[in-house]
Structure formats: structure tokens, C-alpha cells
């Protein structure tokens, strides 16, 4: 294992300390219990957004804390959900009196820990939205349900904008649920990743193999295939994504090509180009785009493609100003 670390057991703490000092104008960090909040939290009268999940997906979620997006993020150990005491402490700190929306990716550990936090919460109005956009998980009656993956990024941006314009908790929740209903994603990997405290790759792939339908925790996917050209990889991902909602001719969409952490931007833009051609052939219009490493699996090579069907309101909320460590526009 080659990583720029001092001690595998203090990776998250040291990274958070670095983040706090790099972005002191935007963020405050608590190390025990561990959470990140907006520097100016709480914002009186604004619905607060709290998300969280295992570390190793940076910039998700801490990089999205700031004006127009999240009020707090609770990082767990690498690929391990945060604990209820973190969620509770973060929610108490950022609650501006208008309630708290918890944004949870649909992984068993995340759901159980956030549920426990809601049970323990006293005196704070809370609502929860669970993101489950991963079409690689086919049959939800026989599994823990679809995983929350790339769709989390546009959801946090759009719900954050709704809260910033003054929507109440029920309205922010409703916007968030509209994103969940209209977003689909699928990912693939060229290499596994190595969790620092484990020291071993999460799975093994031959030089000429790729793993289709991976989640974001280094877990193996649904199918191992021979490596193929980018157009074919993108078509395999988009066949599942487009067919699932389904997206159809004339739809306006946000196309988000996300890197898993170890794939250079040149390949992500290449994949984005393949995706644009694929969608143009189907008459699906791309009106907004995002390309880059936003929800990662440590140093894994690979990408995921997220498609969100936009309406005028979702587009306006996507375009609204945002000022976080990882996303910034309009300010």
C-alpha cells in the first residue's frame, strides 16, 4: 500500500484538520464527535441540511458544506457510516429553528445510524430523504435496496438552494424527493481501492478486466467484463440508466460524469463526450453538466454516470449560487 499518510488510524482526523485550516473562511470542524459545519451556522430561520457517510468519498460530503448547499456533514471512518452521536451533535449545532433535513445514502449502515439519531433527537424537527439512485442493483425486494451514489451530489446542491431561498422543511424535503424520483446512476471500476486501515485492495481485477455496477465503497459490482472502448463502457452504463427511469426523447437533463478518484479528467471528459453522443442519438437533451471527481472511492480508477431529469424549477435551483470547498459558482 502506497499512500500519503502518517498513520492509517488517524487518516480521517488529519484530513479534517487540514480541511479546517484550508477552508477556515467556509468551515468549522469538530473532531469529537466528528462533524463539519458552515462557519456561519446556524442560519436563523433557514432549514438546515445535514448529510454524512463514510470517509473516502471526498469531496462528498464535507466539500459541499457552505452557502447554498449543506450546513453540516458527518464523516465516519473510511467507508464506514458515521454514528448517531455525530449526527445529533451536528444537527443541534446547525439547527436555525426551521428544522433539519437529513440526507442519507441508501446503505444499511448509514440508514441504521441516521434512524437511530432521529430516535435519539429531542426537540429538533427532522425529516429524512434517502437517496437510492444506483440502477446496478436490480431487484430491491431481494437486496437492501438501491444504493445512494452519484445522485447525492445534485440532490445536495438543489435541496441546499431550496433551503437558501427560504423554503420550509416540508418544501425542501419535497424538492429533495423530486430529485430522488428523477435521478439515476451507474458506476464502473478499472481498479479496486485500498482502505488505509485494511491495507489490502478491496477486490482483484486482471489487467484486461473491468467491474461494472460498482458502488462507492470498493465493493465488487454486478458483473466482471473484458475491458472495452469508452463508447462501449458508457453505452453499457447509460443503457441501464436511461432505460430505468426511463428517460425519453425531448427530456432536458443534467449529465454528471463522475470520477472514482483515480481516473484523470482527460478520461472523464472523453467519457462525457461519449455520453453526449449516446444521449443525442436518443434525443435526450443535456442542458446542464458536471464533470469531475465529486463522489469518489479513494484512489479507485473508474467513473459513474448520473442523469437527472430537469424541470424549470430544478434547473433554477441547480443554477443558484453556491459557495463550498468543492463547488462554487454565482458568488
Amino acid at each position, binding site marked *: 500500500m502506497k499512500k500519503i499518510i502518517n498513520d492509517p488510524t488517524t487518516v480521517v482526523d488529519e484530513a479534517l484538520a487540514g480541511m479546517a485550516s484550508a477552508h477556515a473562511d467556509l468551515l468549522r470542524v469538530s473532531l469529537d*464527535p466528528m462533524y463539519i459545519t458552515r462557519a456561519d451556522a446556524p442560519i436563523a430561520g433557514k432549514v438546515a441540511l445535514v448529510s454524512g457517510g*463514510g470517509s473516502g468519498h471526498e469531496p462528498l460530503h464535507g466539500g459541499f458544506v457552505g452557502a447554498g448547499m449543506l450546513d453540516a456533514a458527518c464523516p*465516519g*471512518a*473510511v*467507508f*464506514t*457510516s*458515521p*454514528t*448517531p*452521536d455525530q449526527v445529533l451533535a451536528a444537527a443541534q449545532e446547525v439547527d436555525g429553528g426551521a428544522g433539519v433535513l437529513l440526507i442519507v445514502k441508501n*446503505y*444499511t*449502515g448509514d440508514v*441504521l*445510524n441516521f*434512524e*437511530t439519531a432521529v430516535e435519539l433527537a429531542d426537540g429538533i424537527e427532522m425529516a429524512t430523504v434517502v437517496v437510492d439512485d444506483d440502477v*446496478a*442493483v*436490480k431487484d430491491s425486494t*431481494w*437486496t*437492501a435496496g438501491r*444504493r445512494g451514489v452519484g445522485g447525492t451530489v445534485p440532490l445536495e446542491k438543489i435541496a441546499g438552494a431550496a433551503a437558501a431561498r427560504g423554503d420550509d422543511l416540508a418544501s425542501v424535503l419535497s424538492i429533495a424527493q423530486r430529485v430522488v424520483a428523477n435521478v439515476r446512476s451507474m458506476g464502473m471500476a478499472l481498479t479496486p481501492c485500498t*482502505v488505509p*486501515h*485494511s491495507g*489490502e485492495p*478491496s477486490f482483484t481485477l486482471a489487467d484486461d478486466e473491468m467491474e461494472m455496477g460498482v*458502488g462507492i*465503497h*470498493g*465493493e*465488487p459490482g*454486478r458483473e466482471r467484463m473484458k475491458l472495452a472502448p469508452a463508447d462501449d463502457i458508457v453505452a453499457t452504463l447509460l443503457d441501464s440508466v436511461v432505460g430505468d427511469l426511463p428517460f425519453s426523447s425531448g427530456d432536458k437533463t443534467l449529465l454528471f460524469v463522475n470520477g472514482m478518484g483515480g481516473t484523470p479528467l482527460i478520461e472523464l471528459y472523453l467519457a462525457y463526450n461519449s455520453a453526449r453522443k449516446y444521449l443525442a442519438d436518443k434525443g435526450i437533451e443535456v442542458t446542464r453538466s458536471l464533470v469531475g471527481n465529486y463522489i469518489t472511492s479513494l484512489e479507485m480508477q473508474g467513473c459513474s454516470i448520473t442523469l437527472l431529469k430537469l424541470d424549470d424549477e430544478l434547473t433554477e435551483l441547480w443554477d443558484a449560487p453556491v459557495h463550498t470547498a468543492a463547488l462554487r459558482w454565482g458568488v
Partner: protein
Amino acid sequence: MGDGQACTAADVASAIRAVAEVVTEHKVELSHLDREIGDGDHGENLAKGFTAVVAKLDDAVPDTPSAVLKLVASTLISKVGGASGPLFGTAFLRAASAVADRPELDPQAVATALSAALGGVTDRGKAEVGEATMVDALYPAVAAATAAAGSGTVAEVLQAAATAAAGGAASTIPLQARKGRASYLGERSIGHVDPGATSVTYLLQSLADSAASR
């Protein structure tokens, strides 16, 4: 357990210390099992949680068995993370409530506590027998403990539970996982022993060994 039958708070605390030792000893193996079908952190996280429990017991051992179990619960909930934190934490929390106010645990109370723990795990995790989870170890363990509680000592009740749990854990090997991260593998989860069922077995076996050596 002066008379070989009932457990005091101090007995429960030493049994929990034994669990911490065994979980720490097997953490690499548990994480390895988890890596096959999950994300490879089960052993590390559980060991971290029980190590934190031991640190709290070093500060002070609570007065009753129930209070010891409750301390274990709150520590696991705040230190373990993953699905294991809330699941093991809720198990200990329900066990604590089931034997609240008892100064000592007799064999029947141990079986009652185990049964309540199972109820906590199924309420929180919504898993049933046959879905390749810790329930596959805990369910037969509770049945065996309940059956043994009529005539057995605490050590015998716990040993019956541990033996049944080991059988239950082995039964997960041919099963397709239907809960948790392993479920995402579909049929590829078949052929692997469930890490949670394995840690439940280690936990019960170390409780049994601790009770037998008193």
C-alpha cells in the same frame, strides 16, 4: 457467580472483557470475511468498539448487570459505526432493558436477555432467518439458550447458545445475502460465511468460556 448459577455485574463485566479480547484476536479474520462480500471493516470496527467498552469498564464497573449491558450498548452505538454499531448496540440495549433491576442474572434471565437482544436486532435490521445475516446465528442461539435455561447453569445456557450460533453461522455459507452490503453481490454472495453471524458466534463463545471459568 458465587454459587455457579447467577451472574453479578462484575461477572458480566469480566465476560465483556473476554469478548473484547476474542474480538480483537479475530479482528483480521472478521475483516477478511467481510472483504469477501462487503467492505472489509467488520473486525476492525467491532474491535474498536469493544476496546472502547473495556476502557469505560476500567474507569468504573456499573452496579447491575443491566447497567453494564447498557454501557456496552451506548459505547458500541457511538464507536462502531457501520451497520454493526446500531445492530450490536440495539441488541445490548434490549438485553439491558429485559433484565433491568436484577442484581444478578440466573440462567433464565440470561436466556431472556438473549431473546430480547434478538428482538432488537430484527426490529432494527428487519432481517429474517435465511437472509445470511447475524440473525442466522442469533435465532438458533436463543432457541438453544431458552431450551437449556430450564435445567442448565449460566455457563451451560451460554454454551448451548454458542454451539447453536456456530451451526447457524455455518448455515449462511450456501445462502444468498438479502440484507446489507453483501446483498448487492446477488448470487456472488453464495459460498461465503456471513461475517456478522461469525462475530455473534465468537461473542457467545467467549461469554460461555468466561462463565465456565468462573
